């Protein structure tokens, strides 16, 4: 089939930020499916709680303090996270490097506290279904936390190499910021389910 | 293609009609619940067949219609397109009306089913086991509670309430001639009400896959006139008859010495196991191993000698017995009427 040139694309930029990029949409799609996973796990927890005559099932309520500290740390991390995003969109190398180091530390800190959350649940996963669901919810979120902290660490390392000076890297940064928001926001309902729902009554 | 359609329809109707006489057929109702459902099946089938034939007719017409002259594929006749839009909307409207009708019909059928057992005098608790049915006739007097297995006697012409549950995996209780199926789920209790209009033996079988011997987990509902049923019940409530012959006596002793007692119960003896069918009146039943074999001396012997060959995977173990011992136990069990 013969062709006739009708549109010239030569002036288009070679990278973009946020919803202009496929990666952002890919990240959004993964958030959707992981969010669905969270929702279903939370739904299963509520389903079992609804069926059960008492909740928590023969166990003391969990100690909420480690979880509360994690919550505060995660919420606090949102501020530097968004400052980092602004610098990434401006392709500013030095502040971005600093921001990434800060975010790496702010990712590791809740992970450390998270370690103390598991014993604070006051029940084991194999005691009864209530214990199983607490461990599942906490484990599911911890897996996401570890994954995104790992991602942040790799990006940080990358930004200190010769590969740093590229528009694509800055765009990737934006997507990492985006995903961290997701990790923080999914924690809030899980936090409430684990620590505060057993205190209702 | 049209010819094929007719052939298929013909074959279908012949097969369906002949099915009405099947032993376990949903279209051979012997009670009000199954009757309501059979009617519903016929109605849906007829309506769906009409709809299907209509769609196929239109499809055939698209094939035999005069062709549109071949030209630019994007030049379409506006009048004809408008016409088609109207027809498509009309078809859609008709679809919606049919579906609403069918939904209402289902709803009212459901109500009819729910009304069947509202005044049931008899409650039978059926517990599913891999791969047999434990049947308990509930009664406010503890000494009138009867536990038996696999065959369920009910009074004909009266609604009976079944409470369904399970202690292992999920099973489903289904006697197509009498009612639709309902699952037996560990941790849940389901209620099924049914009524047999006339005396008869109605076969059912487990309808939820439950493992190796799902295929051989059948049950029989035996509907009898009230007096016959009462007599049966009183008979079953008595402890087992003592062994009559010396051989049976030997079998009785062997039964109590061997692993048989670990699982089976025989009323009036020390055999009190509850993980396998109650054998107090085993010989009064028509079948063995949840409908796998007909009750007979030979089959009893075969079943005890080689349960895994007859029902592979069943939880009945092979008990090491020599020929005489086997004969003695069979003689004993055969007397348990």
């Amino acid at each position: 089939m013969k062709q006739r040139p009708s549109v010239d694309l030569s002036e288009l930029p070679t990278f973009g930020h946020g919803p202009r990029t496929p990666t952002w949409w890919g990240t959004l799609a993964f958030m959707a499916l992981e969010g669905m996973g969270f929702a279903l796990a939370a739904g299963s927890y509520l389903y079992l709680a609804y069926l059960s005559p008492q909740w928590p099932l023969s166990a003391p309520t969990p100690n909420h303090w480690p979880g509360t500290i994690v919550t505060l740390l995660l919420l606090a991390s949102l501020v530097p996270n968004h400052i980092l995003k602004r610098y990434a969109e401006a392709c500013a190398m030095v502040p971005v490097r600093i921001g990434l180091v800060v975010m790496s530390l702010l990712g590791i800190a809740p992970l450390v506290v998270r370690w103390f959350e598991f014993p604070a649940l006051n029940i084991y996963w194999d005691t009864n279904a209530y214990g199983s669901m607490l461990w599942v919810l906490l484990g599911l979120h911890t897996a996401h936390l570890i994954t995104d902290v790992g991602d942040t660490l790799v990006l940080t390392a990358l930004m200190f190499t010769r590969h740093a000076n590229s528009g694509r890297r800055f765009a990737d940064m934006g997507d990492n910021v985006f995903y961290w928001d997701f990790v923080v926001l999914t924690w809030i309902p899980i936090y409430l389910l684990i620590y505060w729902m057993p205190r209702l009554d | 293609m049209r010819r094929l359609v007719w052939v298929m329809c013909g074959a279908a109707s012949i097969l369906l009609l002949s099915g009405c006489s099947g032993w376990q057929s949903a279209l051979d109702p012997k009670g009000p619940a199954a009757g309501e459902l059979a009617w519903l099946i016929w109605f849906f089938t007829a309506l769906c067949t009409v709809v299907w034939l209509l769609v196929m007719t239109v499809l055939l017409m698209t094939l035999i219609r005069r062709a549109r002259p071949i030209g630019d594929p994007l030049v379409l006749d506006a009048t004809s397109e408008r016409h088609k839009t109207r027809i498509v909307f009309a078809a859609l409207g008709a679809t919606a009306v049919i579906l609403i009708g069918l939904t209402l019909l289902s709803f009212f059928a459901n109500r009819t089913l729910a009304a069947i057992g509202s005044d049931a005098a008899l409650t039978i608790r059926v517990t599913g086991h891999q791969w047999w049915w434990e049947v308990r006739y509930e009664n406010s007097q503890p000494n009138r509670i009867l536990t038996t297995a696999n065959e369920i006697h009910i009074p004909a012409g009266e609604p009976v309430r079944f409470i369904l549950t399970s202690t292992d995996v999920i099973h489903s209780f289904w006697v197509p001639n009498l009612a639709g199926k309902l699952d037996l789920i560990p941790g849940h209790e389901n209620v099924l009400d049914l009524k047999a209009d006339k005396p008869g033996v109605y076969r059912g079988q487990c309808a939820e896959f439950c493992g190796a011997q799902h295929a051989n987990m059948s049950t029989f509902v035996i509907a009898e006139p009230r007096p016959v049923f009462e007599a049966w019940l009183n008979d079953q409530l008595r402890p087992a008859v003592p062994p009559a012959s010396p051989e049976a006596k030997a079998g009785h002793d062997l039964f109590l010495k061997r692993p048989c007692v670990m699982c089976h119960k025989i009323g009036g003896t020390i055999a009190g196991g509850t993980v396998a069918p109650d054998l107090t009146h085993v010989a009064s039943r028509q079948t063995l191993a949840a409908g796998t074999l007909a009750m007979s001396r030979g089959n009893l012997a075969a079943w005890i000698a080689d349960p895994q060959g007859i029902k592979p995977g069943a939880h009945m173990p092979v008990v090491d017995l020599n020929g005489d011992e086997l004969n003695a136990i069979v003689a004993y069990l055969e007397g348990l009427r």
Partner: protein
Amino acid sequence: MSSADLAHGRDLASEGKLAPERDGPRDTGLDDDSLDRWLARTWQTAPGIIGALSTVDHKIVARRYLITAFVFLCLGGLNAVAMRVQLSGPERGLIGPDLYNQLFTMHGVTMMFLFAVPIVQASGIYLVPLMVGTRNIAFPRLVAFSFWIFLSGGMFAWVSFALNMAPDVGWFAYVPLSGPEFGPGKRADVWAQMITYTEVSALAVAVATIVTVLKQRAPGMSLDKIPLYVWAMLVTSFVVVFAMPAVMIASTFLILDRLVGTHIFNPAEGGDALLFQHLFWFFGHPEVYIIFLPATGMVSSIIAAFARRPVFGYLGLVLSLIAVGFLSFGLWVHHMFTTGLPKLGASFFTASSMLIAIPNGLQIFCWLATLWDGRPIIRTPLLFVFGFFFIFVAGGLTGVMLASVPLDLQVHDTYFVVAHFHYVLIGGSVFPLLGAAYFWFPKITGRMMNERLGRWHFWLAFIGFNAAFFPMHIVGIWGMPRRVYTYPAELGWGDINLFITAGAVVLFVSFALFTINLVHSALRGAPAGNNPWNAGTLDWATSSPPASYNFARIPVVTHVEPLWAERGTLPVATGLRVDARELVISTVAEAHPDVREKSPTPSIWPLFAALAVGGTFLYSIFSPWAVVWGAGPIAITLVGWFWPRGSAEDEE
């Protein structure tokens, strides 16, 4: 349309600071031959084994996907034939319950998870980038990774079968039968981990498909100009994204119960057996539409090409796709009508199940209205579409019967249901897929399929299918439950079962014929040319088979059937680099070209990552520590995957 229009708005240059941009030669003004040389070198898959294992060409990956899924179809079909032989008469002793239960479980698992979903997704991997006019699928490394996951997951299941440890709990593996107490051995673990694992691949492909459709459409392909097949794949992918997590959660809960002693499904410790069913069917019902919706897209494509007109009711069809996608999540409970749920709730699900027949009906009416206009020459693809109408409409109507709570109480878990879902899935999906195979085979191989063999194939498949499955409706109503390895003679099901088995053999023979046709035509078929059916979508604008870069110049779209609207000359875009894998990223709704982004280069790391993930899953059947030990290798391979290598594609 001018370039100024298309590249409107938020220009990056206007946002100030830019990372340094390197530049390379552009296609503007290049003659066709040198353009082809440049692009072929840039987009090629390197020769040799490493090149083959590293490829990210969506067409090559899709071809592998298609062939692998076809092999699984044949294996699943063999399972079915074995079962049919056992059931051909009452009390046959050819196959015992232990093997029979593995056979039907493997048949279901293979057909649903290893054939149906992969093959519709693979067709999308091949066709969607071509239809939307782009050079590769989005996230091609992820798609390559998905293929390796799918292949190894399928092999995992089938090696288990060879070792006599295949799952034997049915494809929906209800607890407690599959739970720790009643499912001894590793069989149910194989089910759980194989499901979780292969669904990773389905999810990844769904994400790639969504992003390809939303962001990589050719300039001008606004939402109202997207081909119906692409719409179908888009909706399907969304359904995958929201449905598959449910089965992964269910299978993960199951493996936790089995492996580390949680009690999620254990009623004795506060768990619940029905929770598993809710989770499974929340996935399981949309699953049917995941398999069916892409097939409707294929039907639309074939009908449009043969009726020689755009499909009637484009908007209605798009809306019904979306409606079906949404509604498919609202009717899972109709698989659980016999579990004793509250009556009122069950009635709600009757209504919602009935409701989904409305958009599906609309699709049928629109296709009939399209066919009404023309008197197409009947070739094999269209024959299969007619077969689709014949069978699927019947299956849809029996679906309406099953939607009724009381009626379902009689036919649930009987052969009536087996008949119904084979009518829906084979009629609704496999027949269109076979039509699509004849339709797009020329595009994929450059050769036509043999028409004579094709007709034989169709008629054998059509007769064999109906002979095998129609009588199942009847024997189901006669009381024959599904999943029984034997039945007593006195129930009178013997003759009809023998007839069914004969039909199944004819159906199987038709597939043997199809295989012969595929091989024969791939080697000796008549050359096809670019557009053998004179169809109107962009996939037919490429050569057959398409070059590695798909389009020498990206087409500019002005109509839903661009090749019919622009007969003679196709408007195209220029200005892309030819020395790097450059794609046009466009805006979501209007498809204005927005960014020239680079598409990833071939990489061996997706294969390594799949091996690491696969090893972890395999090990997890035996020990929960697999997750800990597997985390390291997975992390390493993922870093290897994403770490830039210094190519233009990585750096800019």
